[in-house]
């Protein structure tokens, strides 16, 4: 068992479709300086840095070194971690491991992406096996669409049911000054948007954003002195599967990696009934259907019940378990930062710093990361020291 660790500060950029005014390392610095200010720390207080983004996105191989001016890691221990869509959550978890190990007291975690600088589909397809799957599963949309049709056929969920997830998240984004898309999008708008791969329409999927996120983690003893209300790590869990699309998950059983990771995390956190014991969730939902199927995999409602659970506004602000007060991935998607934003936004909720997007009295928060061939990271944060 490692040391207890908490998030003591977070920072993020104002996310946009493109940031021609800064390079990615200059953009990283915006997030890092705001995280340091949030924690009231100086860069000299940081003992180690973990950074990550998507491989192949900016065509910069050694981002650990490239980013030095922005991360502040000059002559400090720094490591790059990259796990596809989950990258940002994995970076946060790796930073947690650093602090929990006892080797480093204050660790900076950074995730970033300038999606505008690459061909996102071309870069994303490098997640598929080059020999067996890349010929066909071009980009992220087809594999997700396949999952969605299986879910539709199994439970009779409609395209409107899924669209409500998009409407909810885009409405929530109006409360988040950092969100990329800050225009409401309705079920009707989503239904009228062009069909990409059945049943996924343009309005069902996440945008491409430029942005960065940073978090500062501190070990027990230091965390309490640094933040008045630190966000303690109660549990983390990582589950990876095969890249074979025919064998990475069971399209008819659910997202197996998310089921296993969340069950392990709940057990570690002592959570028996997640929907009752969690106060808020920041979930990596890259498309609307995930907001139905995956909340079942997370055990937030029963199999086939998500359309009704979401339809009854249980996951809207003010509901039983608000999901994505930040607006989520449907509103902001700077991929290497996207999963870290889930963890950072969960920390913001627990620390009570959410402003207009704050869920009142949020104590326990769930954050997830999702990657390419159906793998999952889960983090549970709490205002209560475990």
């Amino acid at each position, binding site marked *: 068992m490692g040391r207890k660790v908490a998030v003591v500060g977070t920072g993020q950029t104002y996310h946009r479709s493109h940031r*021609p*005014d800064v390079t990615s390392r200059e953009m990283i610095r915006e997030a890092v300086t705001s995280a340091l200010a949030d924690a009231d720390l100086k860069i000299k207080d940081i003992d180690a840095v973990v950074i990550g983004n998507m491989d192949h996105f900016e*065509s910069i191989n050694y981002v650990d070194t490239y980013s030095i001016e922005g991360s502040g890691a000059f002559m400090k221990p720094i490591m790059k971690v990259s796990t596809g869509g989950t990258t940002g959550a994995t970076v946060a978890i790796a930073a947690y491991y650093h602090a929990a190990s006892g080797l480093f007291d204050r660790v900076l975690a950074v995730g970033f992406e300038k999606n505008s600088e690459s061909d996102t*589909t*071309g870069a994303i*397809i490098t997640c598929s096996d*080059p*020999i*067996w*799957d890349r*010929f*066909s*599963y*071009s*980009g992220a*949309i*087809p594999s997700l*669409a*396949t*999952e*969605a*049709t*299986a879910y539709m*056929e199994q439970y009779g969920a409609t395209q409107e049911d899924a669209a409500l997830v998009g409407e909810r998240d885009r409405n929530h984004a109006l409360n988040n000054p950092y969100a990329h898309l800050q225009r409401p999008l309705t079920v009707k708008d989503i239904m009228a948007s*062009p*069909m*990409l*791969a*059945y049943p*996924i329409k343009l309005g069902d999927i996440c945008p491409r954003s430029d942005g960065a996120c940073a978090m500062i983690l501190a070990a027990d003893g230091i965390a309490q002195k640094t933040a008045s209300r630190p966000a303690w790590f109660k549990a983390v869990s990582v589950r990876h599967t*095969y890249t*074979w*699309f*025919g*064998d990475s998950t069971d*399209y*008819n059983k659910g997202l197996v990696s998310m089921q296993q990771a969340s069950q392990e995390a709940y057990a570690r956190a002592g959570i028996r009934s997640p929907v009752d014991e969690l106060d808020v969730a920041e979930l990596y939902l890259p498309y609307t259907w995930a907001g139905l199927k995956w909340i079942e995999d997370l055990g937030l409602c029963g199999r086939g019940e998500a359309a009704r659970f979401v339809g009854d506004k249980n996951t809207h602000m003010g509901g039983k378990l608000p999901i994505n007060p930040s607006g989520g991935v449907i509103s902001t998607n700077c991929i290497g930062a996207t999963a870290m934003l889930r963890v950072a936004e969960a920390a913001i909720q627990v620390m009570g710093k959410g402003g207009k997007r704050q869920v009142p009295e949020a104590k326990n928060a769930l954050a997830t990361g999702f990657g390419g061939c159906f793998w999952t990271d889960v983090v549970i944060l709490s205002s209560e020291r475990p």
Partner: protein
Amino acid sequence: MSDWRKDVEPLTLKGQIAIPYTWHVGDVGSRFLAALRDEKKILGSRCPECGKVFVPARKNCGACFVDISEWVELKPEGVIEAYTIVHYSHPIQPVKPPFAYALIKLDGADVGFLHLIKKDLDKLKNGLRVKAEFSGERTGKILDIDSFELV
């Protein structure tokens, strides 16, 4: 100090590289592809521990973490497990839309086989039977199976 920003023209540079990778398929994968090309046969492999039949054939089982040596010939037929019909165009797609990507459970296999369906798109449903159509010119690649068609 901040005034100069109003007059700045943010410049953009275009990348010049296209990286021509080549991938070695390996002995196991090569035997699978050569069987498609030369004999129009689909070969799988069976894990000695869990008994799962993988297709395309794999050299080892990920879950049991043991070597696999048993080859299994599969019928070029199976059922649709899940699919999507693609409507958007992108240069990296294998054919022009609309077409379907489908996960097909070949008879005797325990994992889905990822491939294309080009015809009868309005009739597709999970559970329907499909059959492999081999392409006339085969060069040792997964698209030596042209696509699957409803039986």
